[in-house]
């Protein structure tokens, strides 16, 4: 018989736990190879499912474009036709093998990423290579793209959260900085075929590339990658990036109230300040401070503004993942009539962190949660690859990860208060409300 019948279970007492401090966290390593053209391959061989990912990461983000919206268009239209295959042929080929060929353009980099079952990789890599050497950007495909992008933008511009996301970045970095500029319908209208072919030629076909592969990798992965990409004219990124340093010109005014939709029932609130990049010694420490502040469900912002006052469905704060310069961002959608008190509570929480020490239990809670989240996040090859991507693209090695874990485990309340005094001064923040 179960012991519970003999000894009455005391449900008021929590079972003992193993503290996060005792968990060993290690990032599974990659294996590096170099193709004939110098392009480096970082391979993470993990897991027991016969599936894999190959991501080609180019220096082809919007920082490299000479004209607005070109980088995103060149990236999106990679799947829309080569000299021998139409857009339909390409899409059908990847769909036929149950593969996903995703594109993404960021500020510095842009990617072409293949996810597929291992058994089909041989049919797919050659077509990825063809895309990267022979994309044609036909006028017809471009015209469809221009029209559909403008229509999508029209719908998005009706959403306060979309508009808020664009404007806060413009205040932080300046509307001409690659992080701050955004597309308007006329930018799509102005796109020319020559803009795209020139960008493709320089930043993809002859571009700077590195390859990240992950999954239960086939033994012949490197020969396959060599056969597909090793003799293409792409090359590894230069030791010193040719990217100019764009001046960051934050807006002079700090507070903005905008009416986007007179019938709106909620306000999109963004409160943000400029913050140094990952190389600054405070970066990983402020990530711990941010976890207490607004980084997870049990954080102060959530506890106060959602769980105590019910002003919003969710409120979060985070450090923006930018390479040149980050930002500390607080983001929420709150009822129109409670936007003002919600903002007041955000500042109140900043000041509390600046004035009072974080209690031991609260700090332990944030610590353990963060360690548990990293442990869970190291589960599976694609998650590990995504950690490595961030480390490598920001110019770090495994020490960055290990140092981050050390900081989470050891940082104390006094140092966190010092960081709050330095970085959570309400006067340094932009404040935007869009209804």
């Amino acid at each position: 018989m179960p012991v519970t019948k003999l000894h009455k279970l005391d449900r008021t007492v929590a079972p003992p736990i193993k503290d996060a401090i005792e968990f060993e966290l290690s990032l599974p390593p990659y294996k590096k190879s170099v193709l004939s053209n110098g392009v480096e391959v970082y391979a993470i061989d993990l897991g027991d499912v016969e599936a894999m990912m190959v991501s080609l990461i180019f220096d082809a983000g919007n920082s490299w474009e000479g004209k607005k919206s070109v980088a995103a268009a060149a990236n999106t239209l990679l799947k829309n036709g080569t000299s021998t295959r139409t857009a339909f042929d390409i899409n059908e080929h990847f769909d036929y093998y149950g593969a996903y060929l995703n594109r993404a353009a960021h500020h510095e980099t842009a990617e072409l990423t293949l996810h597929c079952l291992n058994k089909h990789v041989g049919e797919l890599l050659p077509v990825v290579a063809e895309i990267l050497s022979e994309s044609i950007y036909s006028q017809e495909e471009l015209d469809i793209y221009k029209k559909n992008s403008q229509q999508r933008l029209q719908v998005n511009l009706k959403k306060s959260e979309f508009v808020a996301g664009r404007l806060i970045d413009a205040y932080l970095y300046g509307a001409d900085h690659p992080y701050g500029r955004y597309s308007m319908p006329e930018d799509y209208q102005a796109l020319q075929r020559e803009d795209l072919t020139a960008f493709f030629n320089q930043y993809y076909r002859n571009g700077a590339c590195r390859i990240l592969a992950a999954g239960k990798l086939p033994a012949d992965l490197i020969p396959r990658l060599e056969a597909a990409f090793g003799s293409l004219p792409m090359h590894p990124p230069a030791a010193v990036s040719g990217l100019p340093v764009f001046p960051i010109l934050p807006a002079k005014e700090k507070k903005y109230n905008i009416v986007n939709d007179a019938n709106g029932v909620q306000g999109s609130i963004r409160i943000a300040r400029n913050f140094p990049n990952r190389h600054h010694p405070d970066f990983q420490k402020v990530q711990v401070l941010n976890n207490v502040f607004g980084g997870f469900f049990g954080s102060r912002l959530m506890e106060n503004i959602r769980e105590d006052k019910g002003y919003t469905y969710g409120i979060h704060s985070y450090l923006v993942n930018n390479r040149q310069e980050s930002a500390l961002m607080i983001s929420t959608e709150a009822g129109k009539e409670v936007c003002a008190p919600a903002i007041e509570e955000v500042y109140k929480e900043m000041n509390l962190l600046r004035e009072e020490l974080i209690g031991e239990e609260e700090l332990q809670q944030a610590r353990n949660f963060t360690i548990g989240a990293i442990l869970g996040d190291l589960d599976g090859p694609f998650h590990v690859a995504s950690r490595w991507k961030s480390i490598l693209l920001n110019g770090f090695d495994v020490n960055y990860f290990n140092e981050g874990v050390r900081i989470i485990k050891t940082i104390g309340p006094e140092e966190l208060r010092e960081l709050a005094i330095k970085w959570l001064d309400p006067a340094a923040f932009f404040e935007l409300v869009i209804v």
Partner: protein
Amino acid sequence: MIKYDRFILANGLRVLVHEDASTPMVVVNVLYDVGARDEDPKRTGFAHLFEHLMFGGSVNIEDFETPLQLAGGENNAYTTNDFTNYYIQLPAENIETAFWLESDRMLSLAFSEKSLEVQRKVVMEEFKEHYINKPYGDAWFKLRELVYLRHPYRWMTIGSDLSHIEQAKLEDVKNFFFKYYRPANAILVVAGKTTAQQVRELAEKWFGDIPAGEKYVRALPQEPTQKEARKMELTADVPLDALYKCYPMASRTEPGYYIADLITEVLGGGASSRLHQSLVKEKKLFSHIECYHTGSVDPGLVVIEGKLIKGVSMAAADAAVEAELARMMAEPITDKELAKVKNKTESAIVFEDMSVMNRANSLAIYELLGDVEMMNTELDKYQAVTAAEMLDTSRHIFDPLNSNTLYYRALEGPGPKENTQK
């Protein structure tokens, strides 16, 4: 092949264990067999509001989040029209914390007035964020009412009206809990770095003494067979005209489900699908169009929705969609298309099952559907579908008398406002 152990506690709680020693984590997933379809039409949105209250403290544990986070865990939950699912992921060493928390809130909630008051507001903000403050956000409220005349899929999980949430009383919360949140009405799945033996001991220890409660027997009004084409038009302050078409399909456990699923793949799965290729790329009538199904336990819907290119008439767009459906009803899909949608399905299953959390969630849902072994036989069922069956089922689904069409028109007027920086 997903391996699992299955046993049932004396109080009726069904338990499934899926061992995976390759992860340092465990997932503890508790599914309750109650969703928005079980609600009173005058108190809609209650199952979902209740989900929020499950985090407001239980009879012996004041605060759910703090001890879980101290144990390095994270958690969330979701409510559908069919069921409500809660899940925790935490380091395997701390597995017992999840049993302690989940069993106490199955034993009884704290029923705090404050929690109800706050979560009513939170859910009302969620309602506004997702359905009022979004262009086209009300479309599905209208569509469900158009399609379902009797079945409770007539309303959204969030509820049909803000006032229903506003009026929720603590008494309703208590009644709901003791009617639906009983071991006899729940499924516990534990997956990851654990063993069947460990789960058996912990389940007995923490869940074994919870009173079984009365098994809830579902008796929902069934939807009569549709016999006439239905149409609805509305005009709202949105930038583009949108077209929605819905057609009733098989329930989740009928063979027709798999066939309908593959039909939606042919029409709307990816950029090589028929609707995208024909209507976005070739005819240039839509800027975006998709085809999917609602995947519900009771008979669901095949849905086609798209945004029209400015200047294209609704009638022309609708006729073009119907021409594609007529093609599905006139001739079988090609061997290549059939192989493609099956390959896509195989791949989607493999990628989905890579995560322990997804595996735990799927086991719970298949157990809910009546046979957890379905998890391992799904792919075979898809592989067995023939082009002839798809032709036949298309003729049934896309019968014009089965159609429900919504013309969602953009208000005529000045173009979109430009946003200034001030």
